[in-house]
């Protein structure tokens, strides 16, 4: 029972921390009747809270990206502010590899005195981490709809093969044009040739359905906004994709079937007759840009399309991918949504988009080059605290936007700081598939492998390949889980990593510091240090704040402090 003791102690802390953040024009209400605090304020004061998140060095537009973005700031009278090192280290880890920095990694980066180069060095290091391919394979798996069952039916073995192929392509930094060409033109068994599953991971396997998936995935555009004729012209390229079973259960061969076009067109009346002149054996297809082509009889039409798609002068291809990467890193596409590119949805900064496209071609479709350019820009490194909350500011990237951690990243982060793991299972096929305990959620390939947490926190259902299928909007049930579930409470109480910190017999101040570095990747501010020190059953011996700080803590008080950090916006959001 806490009652009488803790209440005055807590309200006293409240007023202290409120006093500290008066610079943010929060109302100070001194609720403490029993304590005289006026004299003590000075002791904890020198922590203007803003400095925790922001850097006082003025950003200079020294990369081309910044020149193009800051030009807009000038027009809009936006004064850009850089994020602090402790914000940056966390942001970079989460954005580049989907993983929190360890306590040590965070501490070392923050204390590194090479202010000029340390951000760049960290970026280079992160781009080579093994988790890079886990994390980006996860993102691609959403778009490529890698899932064993429902509504896309890949089947577990095929989902694994497909995911492995995507992941190893990312690990070897396969040039993006080759990556896409292989996805579009491969033939073979779904169990053995990963990329053939692109054609199986489409709910609507008609030529028009496949064309829609290709346009969405690689051109960033939705065919339902196209004229029917354009869709039909493109569909012809996919009218000869054949699927046939083998003797092995659920194995399927994807191949070029020159005879299929005829059979299929006769069969599906709902499709516009894309291939009216079938009998001539020379199909005419139309590229989305309107160019007509008679398909050579000795070449898989998918090849013809893929060759067209990846040509450097094809505007769709490079624009879609650089815009997507920008969206991934900055939360908002230069064209937004990143998979809804159309003429009446123009880019907010056309010159910026052009520049990135050009860089992609020059770098021979090396996606990491684009990552590096963006991550090293001041624009990416801006503070997340807005000075101006207009839509224009948002459209022009005046701040790094807040985004809740993706479901997989969030549970991995909780597991990492507590030293626990989750169990992931798939109901398909029976009996249930079990996944090794220590496997992080970002490394799961098959979208059918899941846990209640992942579902609750809006992991993508991988049914359409549209980015917004991943849903990070907050709902009450998520809070019930984070604030009060036995799942999270067990982790806090029993997690080995957290136990090690709490039971380390260090001074409270050192424990608090370690908790902050582990959970929030930064040092606590003096006000936070005081608040944490004073939480718990206090035996107040005097009216001095300093003496109160010598509160004896029980295990559950430490658990509550860790709990509060895990439930803070700072932990839950990329910021």
């Amino acid at each position, binding site marked *: 029972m806490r009652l009488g003791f803790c209440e005055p102690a807590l309200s006293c802390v409240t007023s202290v921390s409120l006093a500290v953040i008066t610079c*943010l024009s929060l109302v100070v209400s001194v609720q403490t009747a029993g304590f005289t605090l006026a004299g003590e304020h000075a002791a904890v004061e020198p922590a203007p809270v803003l400095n925790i998140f922001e850097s006082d060095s003025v950003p200079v537009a020294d990369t081309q990206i910044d020149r193009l973005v800051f030009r807009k700031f000038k027009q809009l009278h936006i004064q850009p502010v850089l994020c602090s090192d402790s914000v940056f280290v966390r942001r970079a880890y989460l954005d580049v590899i989907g993983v929190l920095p360890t306590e040590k990694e965070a501490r070392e980066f923050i204390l590194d005195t090479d202010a000029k180069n340390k951000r760049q060095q960290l970026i280079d290091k992160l781009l080579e981490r093994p988790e890079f391919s886990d994390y980006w394979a996860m993102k691609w798996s959403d778009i490529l709809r890698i899932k064993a069952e429902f509504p896309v039916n890949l089947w577990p073995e095929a989902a694994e093969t497909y995911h492995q192929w995507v992941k190893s392509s990312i690990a070897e930094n396969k040039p993006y044009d080759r990556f896409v060409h292989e996805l579009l033109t491969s033939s073979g068994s779904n169990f053995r040739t990963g990329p053939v599953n692109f054609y199986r991971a489409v709910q609507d396997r008609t030529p028009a359905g496949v064309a829609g998936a290709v346009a969405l995935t690689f051109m960033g555009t939705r065919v339902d906004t196209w004229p029917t004729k354009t869709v039909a012209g493109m569909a012809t390229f996919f009218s000869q994709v054949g699927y046939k079973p083998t003797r092995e259960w659920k194995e399927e061969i994807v191949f070029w079937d020159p005879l299929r076009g005829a059979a299929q067109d006769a069969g599906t009346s709902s499709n516009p007759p894309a291939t009216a002149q079938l009998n001539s054996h020379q199909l005419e297809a139309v590229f989305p840009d309107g160019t007509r082509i008679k398909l050579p009889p000795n070449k898989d039409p998918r090849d013809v399309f893929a060759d067209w798609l990846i040509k450097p002068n094809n505007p769709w291809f490079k624009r879609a991918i650089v815009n997507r990467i920008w969206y991934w890193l900055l939360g908002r596409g230069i064209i937004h949504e990143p998979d809804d590119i159309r003429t009446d949805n123009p880019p907010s900064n056309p010159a910026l988009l052009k520049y990135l496209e050009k860089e992609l071609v020059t770098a021979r479709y090396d996606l990491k080059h684009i990552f590096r350019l963006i991550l090293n820009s001041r624009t990416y490194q801006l503070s997340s605290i807005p000075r101006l909350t207009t839509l224009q500011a948002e459209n022009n990237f005046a701040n790094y936007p807040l985004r809740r951690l993706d479901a997989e990243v969030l549970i991995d982060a909780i597991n990492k700081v507590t030293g626990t793991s989750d169990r992931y299972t798939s109901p398909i096929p029976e009996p249930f598939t079990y996944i090794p305990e220590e496997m992080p959620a970002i490394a799961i390939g098959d979208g059918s492998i899941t846990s209640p947490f992942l579902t609750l926190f809006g992991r993508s259902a991988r049914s359409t390949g549209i980015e917004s299928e991943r849903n990070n909007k907050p709902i009450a049930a998520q*809070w*019930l*889980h984070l604030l009060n579930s036995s799942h999270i409470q067990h982790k806090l109480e029993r997690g080995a990593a957290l136990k090690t910190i709490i039971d380390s017999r260090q001074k409270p101040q050192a424990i608090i510091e370690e908790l902050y570095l582990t959970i929030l990747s930064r040092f606590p501010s003096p006000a936070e240090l005081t608040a944490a020190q004073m939480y718990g059953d206090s035996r107040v011996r005097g009216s001095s704040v300093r003496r109160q700080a010598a509160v004896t803590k029980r295990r559950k008080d430490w658990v509550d402090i860790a709990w509060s950090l895990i439930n803070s916006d700072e932990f839950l959001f990329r910021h």
Partner: protein
Amino acid sequence: MIWDKDQPDNQTRISRRQALRWGLYSTAGLMLSGHRSLSALAEEAPAKARSVIQIFLWGGMSHIDTWDPKPKAGRDYMGDLAQAIRTNVDGIEIGMLFPKLAQQADKYSLIRSMTHHNNGHETAAYLMQTGHIPGERLSYPSIGAVFTLLKSPGYTGLIPPYVVLTQAQGRFSEEGFLGQKFKPFATGGDANAQRFEVEGIIAPGITDDRQRARRQLLTMMNTLGNTIGANPQIIAAEKAKEQAYELILGPGRDVFDLSKEKPELRDRYGRFTFGQDCLAARRMVEAGVPYIVINYPGGWDTHRNHFETMRRQCPQLDQGLAALLADLKDRGLLDSTIVWCCGEFGRTPKVDWEPPWNGGRGHWGNVFSVLVAGGGFKGGHIVGSSDEKGQEVKERPVYPVDLLGSIYHLSGIDANARLPHPMGEEAYILPRASADVKSAGLLTEIM
């Protein structure tokens, strides 16, 4: 009810419906445009049901061992459960493992001609709860999610409008394209435990004082949130957090406190998980929750050990369900509460006696049974029939759209209404009858 029947003017009515949905959706960013006109039936329908309890016998419960017994079919079909027993309604007999339900037969009707010919768990479960053909481009929301969508604008209850006891189905996404806001709230825990620890609401070992101290600590420690000002993301998160605390520290959690019930009544429901789930469901009905699902703990996918499983589980199903119907009736709640109970399909009427099954039954979607009660469904009737060995429909097929359509109808929901799709796709609550979507009409004989 989603709209007012007294409005004679069609225009007014539609704009009113629209307004309600806008109210719900403007924040979710969903678009809704265009409406189909309402079906004639729905126009006349006064909503009888306020709440629905769906008891889902996941895995697929055998029909001929339960509610469609075939005593004359012989051992190859009936094993050692061949006996049928009389009920309190003349002429209705049910399986021998349901003596308590036999005494309540006046309160429910049995559909013995449910059919969809689908034998996959996921696909059949989807079909039974959405009415839509599995494998189409869109994945539709379940009936519970549709209720949440249409009933929550007027719902002011403390606990979520769509609750599942105790685990979600897992094998299909109940919310479909509506998004996770329409997921059922899964209670977790065990209603039969000393304390029903509803996941997220009632935490083991944390006193209310500690909850309050923690909450205060969190407010203090939330430095970024306190610094960043009026960020729409933070505001949305804070609002959701407030809602959560209404349950954690507010009165909402009392609904789950089964110790508030008389011990004798708890005994009547049965001191096992399913029995207490039924009791918890009744308490939620009293609290006005529109849609409650009990996912039968354990499962009915009896490929092997079929008869042992039936002998173990059926008495619990019998006791819990019979107590629920009687209790709802006693409290005057049965007229406004639909109870429906079935699995995604039935089981092969012919027993697999050979190894490795050794007396098991496979999946059977050709014909199976559903129990419906309350909320405007008449009791004491049998709808349709299966053939003499329970293999095919003999009379009056009932298809998923017929069953779901009847439940919607009794609840005052127009099943022809358009659903808001995040991408603006055209989607309706139930599909129209077509070559792929069979329908034999609403269950008017028992409505």
